[in-house]
């Protein structure tokens, strides 16, 4: 479904990603792990074409996307939830959700307000409040919910559990599992290993912009030296 082939990304002259390659198959949940500054967010931005890799190719649904603008990639069914909450502060929760709406896609059950409110009860309570009146955690929920309104086939979540109450994070884990059953593919970056383990099939570790590990969590547990070297758990 998604394939990165030796991509190299730069911020100005700073070389951030070095020959990063990995594949994500349809229906898979993959966790991108690594310390702060390891290159997780840069990988997401490169996939979304918000940061154009200098070399290498990115293939999504069988199509080369590295020459396309970000909005075209989004319309193809790639949903991105950035770490910083980018909600419209003057719009209400319902309006924010409406902004994210995209037509239903084949093979994906379209998201409705009700389904999203079931997942995030806080948002239902605040549906007529403006974005700026929400707490930090509620804004995070709204960003995720709005992205789901676009009925993505592949969802990129940048540290989704950060700043969210444990009880909601657990619900989020259930949702990700449900999404997976519906055929949605998910790539998430995480520092919370408990959460990553709960939802993901596979762990990819990035350190200093290089891929260091790409296997199952069982394999990660079997190699504690890898965990100690790259994750500071």
């Amino acid at each position, binding site marked *: 479904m998604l394939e990165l082939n030796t991509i190299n990304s730069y911020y100005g002259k700073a070389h951030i990603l070095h020959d990063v390659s990995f594949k994500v198959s349809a229906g898979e949940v993959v966790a991108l792990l690594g310390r*702060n500054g390891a290159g997780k967010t840069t990988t997401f931005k490169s996939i979304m074409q918000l940061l154009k890799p200098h070399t290498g190719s990115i293939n999504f649904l069988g199509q080369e996307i590295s020459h396309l603008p970000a909005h075209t990639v989004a319309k193809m069914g790639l949903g991105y939830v950035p770490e910083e909450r980018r909600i419209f502060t003057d719009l209400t929760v319902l309006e924010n959700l409406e902004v994210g709406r995209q037509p239903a896609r084949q093979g994906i059950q379209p998201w409705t307000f009700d389904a999203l409110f079931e997942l995030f009860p806080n948002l239902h309570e*605040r549906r007529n409040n403006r974005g700026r009146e929400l707490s930090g*955690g*509620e804004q995070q929920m709204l960003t995720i919910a709005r992205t789901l309104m676009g009925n993505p086939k592949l969802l990129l979540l940048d540290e989704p559990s950060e700043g969210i*109450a*444990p009880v*909601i994070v657990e619900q989020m884990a259930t949702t990700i599992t449900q999404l997976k059953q519906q055929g949605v593919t998910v790539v998430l970056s995480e*520092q*919370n290993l408990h959460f990553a383990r709960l939802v993901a099939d596979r762990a990819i570790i990035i350190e200093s912009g290089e891929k260091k590990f790409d296997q199952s969590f069982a394999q990660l547990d079997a190699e504690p030296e890898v965990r100690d070297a790259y994750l500071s758990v």
Partner: protein
Amino acid sequence: MNSVIKVHNLCKTFGGIEAVKDVSFEVETGQMLALIGPNGAGKSTCFNMLMGQLPATSGEVFLGEENLHGLTPRDIWRRGVGRTFQITATYPSMTVVENVQMALMSYHRRLFKVFCYAHKQYRPQAMELLALVGMENQADRHCAILAYGDLKRLELAIALSNAPKLLLMDEPTAGMAPKERIKLMQLTGEIVKQRQISVLFTEHDMDVVFAHAHKIMVLNRGQLIASGSVEQIRNDAKVQEVYLGGGSLYAIEEQTHA
């Protein structure tokens, strides 16, 4: 035990919505008190009222014997209430030690003095604070190139520059790797002990809260629904329902210790 701060019946209403209802508590000297609760429960609103950034609708806050009503955030800071932020706020183009010097100059009201060299002001004191957080070796590096965990430690040094009696920490370990979280909170715990200050912190990482808080308060829909030891809070059915969940997101081993 002496109380550093006493909060009586604090309320805050935003256009008809009661964000904080009748919250009362005390923080004792040398105590690390965690304030936890669901998103939107009113934690940040409480912090903002304690720090004077938001006027309370009703209720009182006493620092020692003094009522903080009507004081500006700056006055409250001068009286010994410090704060660290969820998103670090340092001057990236300055060096580590210069950032601390700035804070010390501000505390000593030297910020706008002319005819003096800023880089010579309070350097020994700044170095002392950096040593306290284990950053003295990085004193002359620029903030822009610091690792995130180091930036958090620097922020702690800056927060200590007004010799606070009470430190408010808003999600101090947000965005950090697990081991860095534990390190930062251990460091905070040592400083609390050594300087006999008190810390009130919010946090969503239960590994951090259960390992480092002396006492926990739980806020839900603006009201305190529970308050007690780590063990009491862990086993409180109501807290599990509204906040903790089934326990799959924090270390289980500690549950057997408790």
